[in-house]
């Protein structure tokens, strides 16, 4: 059985990265409940196998595990709900503007899968392009260029409406 310190370590990792991992898994599965199941599955597996101690980059390893679990879930059950159609918020928007939140969700949903993954990993997961490249088995340049395409597309969709997409300063 795993020691209490390791359990605490895993709980701390969940506290630190849980929200970004959940967003990443939701961006793959399309359903928050399934994404949550995938994350719980990953963390329980980590607790049992004690593989985390062998990981050199713990954060990247966590995202890789969650990606595999979410993709397995999508393969096994199919994506029954279109992305962003579930109605549950993915984000806590600034100044509680949930119209903006829905707009971002829709914009993310319109992105191709690989671009959406890279955007979530880089913006909210705070992974570097090198880490993303390792995770997705692509080059860092490819990751960076896909990210730029994704940003341009997001900006186009979100800033199309007048007075939306306000400059944070």
């Amino acid at each position: 059985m795993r020691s209490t310190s390791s359990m605490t370590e895993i709980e701390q990792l969940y506290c630190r990265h849980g929200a970004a991992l959940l967003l990443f898994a939701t961006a793959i599965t399309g359903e928050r409940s399934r994404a949550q199941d995938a994350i719980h599955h990953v963390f329980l597996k980590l607790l049992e196998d004690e593989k985390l101690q062998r990981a050199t980059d713990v954060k990247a390893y966590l995202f890789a595990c969650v990606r595999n679990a979410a993709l397995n879930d999508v393969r096994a059950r199919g994506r029954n709900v279109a992305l962003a159609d579930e109605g549950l918020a993915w984000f806590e928007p600034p100044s509680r503007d949930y119209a903006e939140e829905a707009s971002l969700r829709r914009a993310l949903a319109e992105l191709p899968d690989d671009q959406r993954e890279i955007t979530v990993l880089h913006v909210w997961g705070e992974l570097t392009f090198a880490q993303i490249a390792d995770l997705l088995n692509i080059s860092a340049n490819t990751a960076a260029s896909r990210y730029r395409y994704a940003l341009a597309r997001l900006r186009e969709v979100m800033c199309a409406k007048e007075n939306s997409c306000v400059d944070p300063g």
Partner: protein
Amino acid sequence: MSIPDDDQFEKYLKQFRPVAGEPLMVKEKAEARSRPLVFAACAAVAAAIVLAVVMSVLVHKPTQPPGPTEEASTTRVSMEEFGNPPPLTIASANALLESAPSFKAAIDNMAFQQESKPISEGRYSLLALLSKEDVKQ
């Protein structure tokens, strides 16, 4: 006002904070998973205790058990020595009925068998010894 710069737009996106998930049920699940292990350990300990008791009983038994007829006779002797009458069996009842002059006499013999047997040589009755001993005031 739109954001033409990628960095500025990225900052804008970061203002949206991902919604936190449900708390991790690691402790409860880990405890639930360990519960069968605890149960198995308790069962193993209980089984070991039972085995130890059985083994101790078997060890304290005589190593060379007597044969069936010999065992029966020793059992009967020891029961007689301790004042217990031999059990009434169909064979002994038949023998009594054959030897008795009447049915009533046979029944009486069965009912009123002598219970106090003489103590074998070299043994003393504790009751007799106690009755002889002076009681200190």
